[in-house]
């Protein structure tokens, strides 16, 4: 979640920037962009440089390999809380100075936290890069926190929680599904944290977490834009290069893993404000990092086939052929250090029972698991996925996000660049096998969002609060 500004837009789907060649309608479109330059500083900081010389601007993103799944139980929300507090200044640059510098040159900045990583970025005119690196390197270890800053910021985070979760029945259902899906792994905890734990986070918690995880050897720096890798290297050495590593941070993150799933689960979230009921099915599936060769691209293709757009199997079956639902979609999030989710989401039409919807979902899954998909469907879906890799190149910040996210979840640059090739190589049999193996109900949680029709409790005291 972003700490700086209003929730703007979620990032779009991002894919690879690799060279494309053969196959289908995009046969002639070859991407000539060079691979990003990469090097590692003496203190272990990995640096990646993605050139884009169209406009004299640059994006700096620093990614720490720490997210909500690395929090100590009982301190949920700490990774995200610290992300907010990283804007509170250092001994060298008091609160506000970094942000003011960014704004004075017309730049923008923000930060984000996920289960596996925490990132900070600035987008500025290219000549400001050295200054941005100096600021970012400084706050890697120089953060100063005072209660006068920490406590109001905790209120800000609680309002963020209210906005994103408490006010939003859909988000509350997501929390319940994830908690039910992960029986043992910390992905079951919300990134923003459980409210009663956020309320108790304090300055000492934040500083301890900061000291434990923020170090050059636990970070990846991505610089994208109108820059030269050599210049970046010398600037990085002068700034980040001066920060001492923390050898105690383990290279590999070992978290409690999920047992073999044994029983399908269901959760039902009812809220008086639900005007459009929904049903969602999440399956526990391997991520790009944990999957066997070829499996993760097959799941990408499967998700697109089943629920990407108006010709997808679920949309056809539920929205077009038998109009039982107003929408139907599927998604797979491959970028994840540990086992991830394959998601199906359907909004039934008024009066349609969840059971009718689920029957169709199950029939579609069973069909995909038994019969090889049509060659033209497979081709169409692959083309769409691969094209996204080209569209992504239009946006340097998108590319920076995509590489940063992959590198902080255990993937390599080569994994990313070869992604289109691996999508192209997916066969109908692999898609069928993936459906059969992973879309097994035992691996799933089904979540229902329903209107709470119970008569509302009286609230006689409401008016008395008037001051």
């Amino acid at each position: 979640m972003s700490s700086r500004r209003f929730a703007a837009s979620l990032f779009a789907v991002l894919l690879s920037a690799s060279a494309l060649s053969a196959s289908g309608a995009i046969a002639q479109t070859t991407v000539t962009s060079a691979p990003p330059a990469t090097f590692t500083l003496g203190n272990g900081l990995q640096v990646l440089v993605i050139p884009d010389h169209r406009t004299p601007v640059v994006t700096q993103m620093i990614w720490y390999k720490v997210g909500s799944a690395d929090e100590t139980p009982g301190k949920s929300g700490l990774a995200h809380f610290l992300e907010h507090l990283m804007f509170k200044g250092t001994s060298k640059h008091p609160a506000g100075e970094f942000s003011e510098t960014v704004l004075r040159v017309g730049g923008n900045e923000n930060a984000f936290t996920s289960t596996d990583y925490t990132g900070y970025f600035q987008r500025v005119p290219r000549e400001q890069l050295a200054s941005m690196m100096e600021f970012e390197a400084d706050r890697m270890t120089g953060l100063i926190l005072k209660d006068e800053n920490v406590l109001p910021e905790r209120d800000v985070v609680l309002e963020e929680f209210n906005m994103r979760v408490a006010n939003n029945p859909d988000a509350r259902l997501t929390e319940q599904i994830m908690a039910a899906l992960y029986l043992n792994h910390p992905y079951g905890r919300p990134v923003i944290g459980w409210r009663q734990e956020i309320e108790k986070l304090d300055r000492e918690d934040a500083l301890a977490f900061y000291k434990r995880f923020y170090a050059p050897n636990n970070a990846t720096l991505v610089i994208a834009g109108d820059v030269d890798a050599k210049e970046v290297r010398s600037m990085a050495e002068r700034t980040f290069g001066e920060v001492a590593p923390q050898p105690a941070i383990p290279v590999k993150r070992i978290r409690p893993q999920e047992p073999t799933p044994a029983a399908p689960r269901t959760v039902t979230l009812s809220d008086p404000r639900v005007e459009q009921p929904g049903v969602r099915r999440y399956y526990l599936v391997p991520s790009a990092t944990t999957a066997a060769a070829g499996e993760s691209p097959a799941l990408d293709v499967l998700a697109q086939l089943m629920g990407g757009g108006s010709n997808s199997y679920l949309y056809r079956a539920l929205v077009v052929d038998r109009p039982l639902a107003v929408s139907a979609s599927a998604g797979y999030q491959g970028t994840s250090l540990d086992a991830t989710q394959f998601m199906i989401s359907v909004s039934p039409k008024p009066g349609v029972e969840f059971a009718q919807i689920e029957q169709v979902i199950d029939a579609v899954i069973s069909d995909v698991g038994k019969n090889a998909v049509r060659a033209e469907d497979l081709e169409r879906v692959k083309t769409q996925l691969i094209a996204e890799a080209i569209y992504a190149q239009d946006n340097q910040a998108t590319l920076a996000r995509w590489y940063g996210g992959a590198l902080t979840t255990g993937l390599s640059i080569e994994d990313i660049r070869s992604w289109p090739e691996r999508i192209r190589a997916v066969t109908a049999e692999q898609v069928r096998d993936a459906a059969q193996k992973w879309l097994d109900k035992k691996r799933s949680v089904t979540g229902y969002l329903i209107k709470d029709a119970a008569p509302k409790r009286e609230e006689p005291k409401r008016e008395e609060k008037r001051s």
Partner: protein
Amino acid sequence: MTYHGTFARRAAFVVAACLTMALLAPTPSHAAAKIQHLISPGGIEAWFVQDATVPLIAMEYAFGGGATQDPADKPGVGNMVASLIDEGSGDLDSRTFHERLERRAIELSFSSTRDYFRGSLRMLKDNRDEAFDLLRMSLTSPHFDSADVERIRAQIMSGLRRDTSSPTSLASRKFLELAFGDHPYGRLANGTLESVPRIDVADMKDYVGRVLARDTLRIAVVGDVDPATLGKLLDQAFGGLPAKASLTPVADVEAAKPPQRAFIPLDVPQTVVTFGGPGIRRNDPNFMAGYVVNHILGGGGSSSRLYREVREKRGLAYSVYQSLLWMDHSAVFVGNTGTRADRAGETVDAITREIRRMAVDGPTQQELDEAKSYLKGSQMLALDTSSKLASALLQYQIDKLPIDYIEKRNAIVDAVTLDDAKKAARRLWGQGLLTVIVGRAPQAAAQPAAAAPPAAN
């Protein structure tokens, strides 16, 4: 791997800073420096930047009209047209039409905004002929088959039903009503639960016939195509449209005079507050002064006064901002925040106080200098992708700015004096606020006069 997950789902938390449009840089971006005014053989005009860095073409375009052309008793017609115009055209049914798009990963979309019916087309360069041909079909021979109409209608109705319990939707809907009353700007483009069921194919065909025409069309294209080829493509896509639109005239309107307050009770943990008032039209000579001073008050991310007072110092909200909105026939400023029910009064008071302070004293010279510096630097960042550049070039045309505006703009920003900024602040905020409060907050029901003293808590 797709990033659906990490970014869009698991963390509905990964969020980007958003850029404000329509501002330019000290050094224009390389691409923006080469804007051509292209006229096709058939007389279709476009602003065009040729750029072969990435093998794609991005086009943004707009027809005059938008939601203002919805029949007064049937708001939502334009929106329904926008949702259905790519659901089957010419000799292709919806399924085949989408297959043709998907097979080549062509991105085609439409929307009905307040004043414009807009479209967006993005393709890999090798697929340009197919892309422009599909666009031609959708614009000139949409089917509106009844099964598709009912499917899309059900989706729009589902969204409208959701809106009835969403505090932010309720607040913005009410704000527009408060500001614009019966004027078309008082309605939302997606219509209402009452109007959408009554929209029929004849309404949509009538809308298409009146609105989609060449004389109000504005086009911006950025990408890997040469001007001669683009000219032919534009003729292919738009040449078959009627020469003249027949639009219902829309009256100029001034937003309601503040202060006024409305309260909508809704049992939600976070109270949502939308506030605003009459703004400054884009063609007003004092527009830039207003733009700069609004940036200082509520538009500048972490540097704005509202951000500092409401979020940073008091921890009252996660998000608080205010922007200027300009339309063809009016203008408003509008802000938004969300806060704990028991501190909603305190939040509204803090906002009101800052707005009053700015109206009375204006900004400081230092604030003005820093805001100008930001505004001059930020445009370059707003123009760094083909899609963003195309959107900006369309907006300049909509705003009736000259094609060399990018070069002129810094001088316009620099010319804003402290006195101009103070005058603009007085004009914008001297009267107070139109405020809509949605939530549990009991104080919200109080009328503005009663809300003046600071809250006890």
